[in-house]
């Protein structure tokens, strides 16, 4: 270490008096200026520090390289001879940037990198590219390379043409992969999962599968072969009805949309007695039933899905009726849930529900989040939610942009008369325990100012133990016009002027 430092001093000394175009020079000079502004210590430390980065052990440099995409890591080979083959020891291979011109170039890049790579173990192997069937053998070899290196995380995201995703032959996972007992995390998009025998993912903790048709048989094989699985996400995969998860270890399940090639209407039944967190997202076109049977361990639920309907068609009303049933039944099964997130579509369905379908109150929910565009036809839904979960202590309203299509299509069920009645009926909640309110997306509320103000007024008037109300914009506001700022001011002032039931309530507008 000492020698290197002296050596560097000798090397850099002749350079410093010159103002050449040598990039090292300019670094020294600029850093010298910078440092002299900030610190008082002598120049000797500075010159030594220029090369001190190189005195760092390889392990630190490798750490830095590990966070880079493999392509960038390989480029560092040009920095100096010491860096020439550092990248080959980086325990991760990531070819996920889309800068490769086509799949063949990426495949060549991958093959060359694998030849030189010599880390004894891989922590991460990730690929993202537009698969072509003629590359099958090569992809098989990459997977073999990764599993031989006992990879922890393996991600194969093979995208496909958007227009017809299943047109080309999909990549079929090699059979030997199902026997990988070291992998912790698997992530597959557009890969066909067809294990011939049993699945032996004995270390697997997280599994994400997307854009492939999964039959009940396959998903059961997978679940049986993954005894330590904690997290499961299925995106555009569901092509079956009953989802029996008896896994002791599974904590969180995320289901996003049914399969793109769903043949028959889905009647989804989820039996998952050990699951703590459940998310149902995306589009379940054609779903007529969705039940959570025995979700006794459920603590957190997110319902941010929709059942898209062709509103022009004759079945529209029928589908809408089914949708109301779906949402109503779902809510019946959520009594033990402590934290609930309700999305835009579900809220609107709640709004058009007739009284007999309304969920019965639940005592356990302490934290409620609503994603709503807060238009007038959301009001009943908001009121219903507040009434059904009277023990809520934290309320979050996430204001999202309205989707015209959604609104106008549900208007066919919207009854103006019962709406005005509903305002009295539904906004009767006592809000006895509400302590904190957070409202995001304030800016988007301008077009529905009236409704927004109504809701806030109601909250302030009735929340007797309210401590804090925060109204804010998730992103930092920039380039606001003068008019907009004025508007903010007006609205904020109005909100601040409302009477508050709670003497301790503080309303904040952190911008």
């Amino acid at each position, binding site marked *: 270490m000492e020698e290197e430092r002296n050596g560097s001093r000798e*090397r850099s000394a002749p350079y410093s008096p010159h103002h050449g175009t040598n*990039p*090292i020079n*300019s*670094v020294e000079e600029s*850093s010298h200026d*910078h*440092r002299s502004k*900030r*610190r*008082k*210590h002598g120049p000797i*430390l500075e010159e030594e*520090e*220029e*090369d*001190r*980065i*190189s005195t*760092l*052990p390889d392990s*630190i440099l490798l*750490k*830095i*390289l*590990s*966070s*880079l*995409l493999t*392509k*960038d890591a*390989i*480029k*560092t*080979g*040009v*920095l*100096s*001879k010491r*860096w*020439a083959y550092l990248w080959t020891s980086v325990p991760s291979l990531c070819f996920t940037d889309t*800068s*490769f011109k086509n799949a063949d*170039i990426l495949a*060549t*890049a991958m093959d*060359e990198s694998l030849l030189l790579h010599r880390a004894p173990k891989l922590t991460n192997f990730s690929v993202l590219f537009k698969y072509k069937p003629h590359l099958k053998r090569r992809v098989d070899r990459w997977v073999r390379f990764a599993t031989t290196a006992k990879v922890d995380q393996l991600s194969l995201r093979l995208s496909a043409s958007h227009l017809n995703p299943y047109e080309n032959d999909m990549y079929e996972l090699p059979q030997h992969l199902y026997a990988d007992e070291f992998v912790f995390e698997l992530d597959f998009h557009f890969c066909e999962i067809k294990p011939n025998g049993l699945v032996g993912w004995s270390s697997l903790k997280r599994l994400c599968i997307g854009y492939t048709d999964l039959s009940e048989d396959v998903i059961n094989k997978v679940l049986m072969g993954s005894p330590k699985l904690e997290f499961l996400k299925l995106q555009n995969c569901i092509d079956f009805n009953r989802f029996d998860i008896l896994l002791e270890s599974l904590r969180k399940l995320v289901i996003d949309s049914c399969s793109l090639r769903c043949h028959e209407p889905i009647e989804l039944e989820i039996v998952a007695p050990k699951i*703590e*967190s459940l998310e149902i997202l995306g589009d379940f076109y054609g779903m007529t039933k969705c039940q959570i049977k025995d979700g006794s361990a459920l*603590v*957190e639920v997110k319902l941010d899905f929709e059942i898209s309907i062709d509103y022009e068609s004759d079945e529209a009303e029928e589908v809408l009726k089914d949708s109301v049933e779906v949402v109503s039944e779902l809510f019946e099964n959520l009594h033990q849930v*402590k*934290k609930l997130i309700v999305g835009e579509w579900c809220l609107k369905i709640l709004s058009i529900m007739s009284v007999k379908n309304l969920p019965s109150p639940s005592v356990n929910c*302490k*934290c409620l989040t609503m994603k709503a565009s807060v238009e007038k036809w959301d009001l009943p839904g908001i009121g219903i939610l507040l009434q059904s979960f009277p023990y809520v*202590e*934290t309320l979050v309203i996430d204001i999202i942009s309205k989707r015209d299509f959604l609104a106008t299509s549900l208007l066919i069920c919207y009854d103006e008369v019962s709406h005005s009645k509903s305002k009295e009926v539904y906004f009767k909640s006592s809000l006895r325990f509400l302590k*904190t309110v957070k409202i995001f997306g304030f800016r988007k509320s301008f077009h529905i100012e009236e409704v927004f103000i109504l809701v806030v007024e109601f909250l302030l008037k009735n929340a007797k133990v309210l401590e804090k109300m925060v109204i804010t914009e998730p992103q930092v506001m920039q380039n606001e016009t003068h008019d907009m700022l004025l508007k903010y001011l007006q609205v904020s002032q109005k909100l601040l002027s409302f009477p508050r039931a709670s003497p301790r309530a503080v309303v904040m507008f952190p911008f």
Partner: protein
Amino acid sequence: MANGENQNPNPNPIEATPGAAARTITLKTADGEIFEVEEAVAMEFGTVKSFFEDDAVSATKPMPLPNVSGSALSRVITYCRRSLEIRSMIPPATSEDATAAEAVQGEGDLEAEKAAKQERKEFEAEFLKDESNEDVKELILAANYLNIKELLDFLCRSVALRIQNKSVEYARKFFGIEGDYTPEEEAQIRQEYAWAFEGVDED
């Protein structure tokens, strides 16, 4: 050295801050600055921790850190303090820490963990926002010398973010490396991995 407070039942009154319940350890940097740090924070430094574990004899001088400057140490201390705070947001058993804004009473680890993660994300984004490349380099050297794994991991990730997709010259400048390839050698490497050298950002 506040060693006496750690090892012996009789606290050494010389270094003790009046009225402070927490024990402090005194550190001295390369440029002569003295820092009094809470013991919990100082124990995050692997170097300091092993020093105190090995040395049973209490000394009266502050512990010297010859490779760390005052400004770097001050940033490091800020990081470790905040990091400890955030970690204490996750209740191991019955922690009553109230900094987790959304944590509901008796909710359980799931909620607190998420809140802690969010806090950490925001804190880390802010921490290096105004730091120049030189400062980041210095912090790495300090974190490496002081043997603070968490900070080092974070800094390495941040460095990677700063140099990713930039040109080789940028990385050279950042690390202050002198290239020792001949132009021919370098050209050959660039050609061999032509696919890697396409499509870079302007510096």
